[in-house]
C-alpha cells in the first residue's frame, strides 16, 4: 500500500482550465433534503462541478462526552443510544463490552447470543435505511418505502424484546436488560426467512437499475490507502476492497463462533471503491447478517440472560479502548476510569465522523448530483457525527 503525506492543498483541486470562470459558493444544508440531517457542506462550484466541499458539523452537538463524565456508569447507556440512533443496539454493545473488559466480567452465554441477534438485526435495519435513503438521494422514492416496510418488522421484534422501537437501552453492562420473551426466537427465524427473498426485490428495483448504476458507478472513488488514512471504516472501507471487519479481525462477544463472509467491493460496475461498491457491500452484508442471526437463533442456549448483571458497577481504575463493528464502521469507546461511580472520560470515536472527513478529499471534480450520491453512500448519521 502506498504511503504518502497528504499536502495541505488536497482540499483545493487545481483545475488548469483557461475557460475557468468565477466560483460560486453554495451552502448545502443544514436544511437540505439529502444531507441526512443537519450537515452543512460549503461548496465551491463551477457550474455543476464541485471544486471543493467542506463539511461544517456540530449542529447536532449534544455534549455526550461532557454528559458521560457526570453520570454513573450505567446511566451512560441511554445516552449511547442517542449517538447513532439508527443502530442503537450496536452502540450499547460497544460501551457495555468496553466496561465489561475493564471490569474483567464474564457474561452469561444466553445474553451474549441475544446481544449478537439484536445487534445483527439492528445492522440489517440500519443498512435498510442506508439503502432506502440512498435511493432517495438518487431520486428513486419507492425503494425507500419498501425498506421501511421491512424495517418495521425488525422494530416490532425489538419492541417485543425491550419495549422500545428506536432507543433501546437494551444491552447492559454484564448482560441484557430483558430476556427474550416466549416465542421470540421463532419470530426472529420467521423474519429471516421472510427477509432474505426481499433483498432480490430491492436489487430488481434499485441495485441493478441501469440509471442507478450510471449514477453511482465510478463516482466518488475512495482508494484503499486514502480510506485507511482518513480513518474510513465499516462498509465504506470494505467497499474500497479492504478486507477488514472487526467481527472477524478483532472479535468481541461471540462473533468468532459464527460462520459468515466479509463482503468487499469488487468494482463490478466500475472502479473499486466507488459509491456503487459501498452500496453493494451494504446490500450483501444484509445477507451475512441474516446468516449470523439464523445461526445465533438456532444455537441460542438456555439460561438467565440477566444473571451476570452486576448490582453496582465498580470499574477499577484504568483505561480501555473498545472498538466494535457497527453498521457504519468502527465505533470506538475510549473509557478512562478512576475507580469512582462515574467514568472519568468516555471518548467516542464515531465511524460516521471519520467517514465524513473523507468527503473533502473525494468531492473535488464531481457534480452536485454526485456529491449527494457520495454523501449518501458514506451513510452518515448526524447524531453520531456531532455526538
Amino acid at each position, binding site marked *: 500500500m502506498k504511503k504518502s503525506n497528504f499536502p495541505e492543498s488536497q482540499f483545493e483541486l487545481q483545475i488548469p482550465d483557461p475557460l475557468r470562470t468565477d466560483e*460560486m459558493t*453554495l451552502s448545502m444544508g443544514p436544511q*437540505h*433534503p*439529502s444531507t441526512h440531517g443537519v450537515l452543512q457542506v460549503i461548496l465551491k462550484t463551477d457550474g*455543476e462541478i464541485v471544486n471543493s466541499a467542506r463539511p461544517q458539523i456540530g449542529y447536532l452537538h449534544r455534549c455526550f462526552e461532557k454528559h458521560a463524565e457526570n453520570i454513573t456508569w450505567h446511566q451512560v447507556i441511554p445516552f449511547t443510544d442517542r449517538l447513532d440512533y439508527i443502530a442503537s443496539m450496536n452502540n450499547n454493545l460497544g460501551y457495555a463490552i468496553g466496561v465489561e473488559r475493564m471490569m474483567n466480567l464474564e457474561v452469561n452465554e444466553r445474553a451474549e447470543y441475544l446481544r449478537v441477534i439484536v445487534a445483527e438485526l439492528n445492522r440489517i435495519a440500519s443498512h435498510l435505511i442506508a439503502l432506502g435513503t440512498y*435511493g*432517495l*438521494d*438518487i*431520486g*428513486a*422514492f*419507492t425503494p425507500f*418505502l*419498501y425498506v421501511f*416496510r421491512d424495517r418495521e418488522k425488525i422494530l416490532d421484534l425489538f419492541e417485543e424484546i425491550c419495549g422500545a422501537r428506536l432507543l433501546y437501552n437494551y444491552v447492559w453492562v454484564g448482560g441484557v436488560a430483558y430476556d427474550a420473551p416466549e416465542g421470540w426466537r421463532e419470530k426472529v427465524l420467521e423474519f429471516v426467512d421472510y427477509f432474505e427473498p426481499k433483498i432480490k426485490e430491492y436489487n430488481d*428495483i*434499485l441495485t441493478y*437499475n441501469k*440509471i*442507478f448504476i*450510471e*449514477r453511482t458507478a465510478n463516482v466518488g472513488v475512495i482508494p484503499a490507502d486514502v480510506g485507511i488514512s482518513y480513518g474510513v471504516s465499516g462498509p465504506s472501507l470494505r467497499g474500497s476492497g479492504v478486507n477488514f471487519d472487526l467481527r472477524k479481525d478483532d472479535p468481541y462477544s461471540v462473533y468468532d463462533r459464527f460462520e459468515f463472509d466479509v463482503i468487499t467491493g469488487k468494482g463490478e460496475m466500475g472502479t473499486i471503491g466507488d459509491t456503487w461498491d459501498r452500496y453493494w457491500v451494504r446490500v450483501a452484508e444484509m445477507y451475512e447478517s441474516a446468516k449470523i442471526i439464523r445461526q445465533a437463533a438456532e444455537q441460542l442456549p438456555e439460561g438467565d440472560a440477566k444473571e451476570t448483571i452486576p448490582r453496582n458497577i465498580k470499574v477499577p481504575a484504568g483505561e480501555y479502548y473498545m472498538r466494535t463493528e457497527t453498521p457504519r464502521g468502527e465505533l470506538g469507546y475510549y473509557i478512562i476510569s478512576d475507580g469512582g461511580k462515574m467514568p472519568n472520560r468516555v471518548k467516542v470515536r464515531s465511524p460516521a465522523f471519520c467517514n465524513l472527513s473523507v468527503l473533502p478529499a473525494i468531492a473535488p471534480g464531481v*457534480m*452536485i*448530483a*454526485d456529491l*449527494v450520491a457520495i454523501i449518501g453512500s458514506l451513510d452518515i448519521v448526524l447524531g453520531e457525527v456531532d455526538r
Partner: protein
Amino acid sequence: MEPLVQFFYILLPFLRDWPEWLALTVIGIVAALLMFGFVAIFALFAIWLERKVSAHMQDRIGPMEVGGWHGWAQTIADTIKLLVKEDIVPENADRILFKLAPAIVFTAALAGFAVLPWTQDFIPADLNVGLLYILSVSSFAVIGILMGGWASNNKWSLYGAMRSASQMVSYEIPVALALLAVVMNAGTLSMRHLVMAQSGNILDWNVFNFFPLTAVAFIIYFVASLAEVNRTPFDLPEGESELVGGFHTEYSGMRFAFFFLGEYANMYVVSAIATTVFLGGWLPPFEFLSFIPGPIWFVGKAMTMVFIQMWLRWTLPRLRVDQLMYTCWKVLTPFSFAIILLIGLWKVI
C-alpha cells in the same frame, strides 16, 4: 367555418341569430372556460390519482380521510389550503418576474389545449399547423421556469432554471423529430387530419404503421416528452434531493399551485399529443366499440399515458445532467433521424 363554431351552432341554435362577432366572442369565452375547467378538474384528479398510484405501488394506501371514499377530496382541500396561504415573495427577488413566472408556465400549458381534437367536431381551434403550434407554445414554459428560477434570487433556483433551460430546449429536438416521422407519412400538420388519417381499426394507428419504425418513434417521443414536462427520471429542474425544490424553491401558496397545475396540465398535453399522433385520437380500437363516444376514447387513452408517466416516476431514479444530455443528443436524436430516414426510404420504395 371552424368546426368548434359549427358545434356550438348545433348545440345552441339561438346563437345563429346573434351578430357574428358577439357569437364568436361568446363561443370563444365559453370554450376557454371549458378548457380551464377541464384543466383544473383534470389536475385535481391527476394529483389524487398520482397519490393513490404511488401509494399502492409502495404498499401504502395514500390519503383516506378527506371526503370519505378513498380520500377523493384531499386535493381539493390541499388546493384550498394553497390558495389561502400567505403569498410570500422573497425580499431580494425580482418581484415582477417572480410574480409573472407561474402565470407564463400555466398559460403555456393551457394554450396547448387550444388545438387538442377531443372529437371530430370539438376542436377549439382547428389550425392547419396545429402540431407546429402546440410544439411552439409548449416551449414557452421554459421561459416561465427560467424567469421563476432567476427572479427567486436563490442559488438552488438558479441551478434548477439553468438545468431546465438546457433540458427543455434540447429535448424539443427529439420530440419534433419523432413527430416529424409521422407527419411525413400523413402529410398534414392539422391535428384533426392526423387523427382522421388513422381511421380504421387498431392496426391503422400510426404506432403500428411502418412497424416497428413508428413504434420506436413513439417511444422516443414518449421519453422526450417526459423530459419536456420535467417528470422522473428527468426531473432535474426540481430534483428535490439535489436542488431542494429547483426552480420553485422559493414559491409557496397560490403561485406554487400554479406551477403544479401547469405541470399536470403539461402532462396531459403531451399525452394528448401522443394520443392524437400515434394512438388514433378519438377513434376506437375496433369498429364494434364505436358506440362509445370519441371524447371518452380520447381522454381514456391520454389518461393511460398519464398513468404510465406516473408509473415510471415511482419506479426510476433520476439521471444526472450529463447523462441527460447524453440521452438526448447521443441516443434519442440519432435514433429519430434514423427513423425519419428509414420511413422516407420505405415511402420511396
